[in-house]
């Protein structure tokens, strides 16, 4: 039996490019096909080898300085991270569309190549929706770091932060005390993500900030995204959507999610 039609999906599985349904399907096939199981194992071995240190390279010293020398001087007050949005909306919107059109074109062209690409289509479109939210979440995170709007209520006491949300939104997010797990509650605020109001619970670890966005609903989204160097982690519980955004390492974000989930 030839599995040529399965080969691209075996790679896609190894690369984490399949949605859950198709991942299960191909996993089931691998479990019963020694040929594809062998391919999958070889791909994973190779990926392992390529994750060795010394393969991702460091830019030569001095290069960053030379590039920075060509940049406009930093803003003196370190406030206002982003230029006013209206001023830029024209070119912003236009090129976003051009970019999206190109992506769609690239994808449409691929349909002929693999009949099974349909399952990727599903994944790709979902990833697109996720990107808009991710962009909006990271923007909110960056605005908060730029000092524009980190808290509406600043307190390390959960009995102050939690009631503050009541009456301002339809939902009240859980605000567990995670100090023993190494995450300090620093406050809360209301922010807007992709046009909707969200409760934001703010935790800190060392000098890093975790903005936890919470809103009602349980729309599907990828569990983990990375955008512009920031990590986003998504989960749902009790009819609420949670998005944690931070510049902490992924292992520490895991820790945070586990601690928060265990406490709620």
């Amino acid at each position, binding site marked *: 039996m030839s599995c040529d039609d399965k080969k691209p999906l075996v790679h896609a599985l190894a690369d984490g490019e399949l949605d859950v349904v198709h991942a299960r399907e191909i996993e089931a096939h691998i479990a019963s096909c020694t040929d594809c199981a062998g391919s999958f194992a070889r791909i994973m071995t190779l990926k392992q080898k390529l994750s060795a240190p010394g393969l991702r390279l460091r830019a030569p010293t001095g290069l960053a300085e030379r590039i920075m020398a060509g940049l406009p001087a930093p803003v003196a007050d370190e406030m206002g991270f982003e230029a006013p949005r209206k001023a830029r909306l024209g070119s912003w919107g236009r090129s976003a569309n051009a*970019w999206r059109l190109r992506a769609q074109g690239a994808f449409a062209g691929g349909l002929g190549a693999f009949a099974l690409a349909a399952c990727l289509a599903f994944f790709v479109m979902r990833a697109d929706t996720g990107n808009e939210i991710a962009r909006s979440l990271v923007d909110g995170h960056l605005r908060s770091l730029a000092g524009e709007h980190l808290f509406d209520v600043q307190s390390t006491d959960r009995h102050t932060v939690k009631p503050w949300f009541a009456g301002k939104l339809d939902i009240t997010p859980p605000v567990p005390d995670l100090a023993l797990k190494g995450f300090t509650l620093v406050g809360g605020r209301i922010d807007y993500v992709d046009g909707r109001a969200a409760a934001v619970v703010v935790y800190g670890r060392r000098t890093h900030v975790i903005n936890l966005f919470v809103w009602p609903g349980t729309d599907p989204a990828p569990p983990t995204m990375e955008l512009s160097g920031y990590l986003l982690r998504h989960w749902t519980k009790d009819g609420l959507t949670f998005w944690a955004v931070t510049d902490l390492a992924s292992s520490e974000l895991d820790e945070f999610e586990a601690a928060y989930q265990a406490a709620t």
Partner: protein
Amino acid sequence: MTEADQREGERFRKLALPLLDEVYTFARYLTRDAGEAEDATQETYLRALRYFSGFSGESIKPWLFTILRNVLRSRDPRRFEPLPQGEGGEAGNVEPLWGETEADPEVQMARADDARVVRELIGRLPSVYREAIVLKEFNDLSYRQIAEVTGVPIGTVMSRLARAREELQTAWFALEKKGQKE
């Protein structure tokens, strides 16, 4: 210089500079030359700053790689030429990566899992396979993002990636066999 320019510069600094190592990594694997990679990386950032106001805001990483690729192509128009037999070309013309050749005793003595040897093997892949595997494994781009950067359909990205992996596995196997004989 207006305040808006300064803010734009600050935004660029925060978004783009943390990706410097990644951009350089891609440039280095593509050019196989430290000096050229450094030049191309610097030019990429200068161009990126110039066009930053037109950046879509979705994800800066693929955007930077797209610019880098254009920089590399303008320096060597043949760099990303399609392979002789469509996508199924040979990894025939072997250019040593970073001057490490098989005659190099250090390479011969190196264990097969030495990073230098892996870099050498990747460096021997035809450039369209090489960029696919580097963008996937070292720059963590998704298939969709690699398709955007390289301007080919996702299906082509997938077949290039599969081909790159096959060639690396074959080369690896040959190297290990040789190691056992000695």
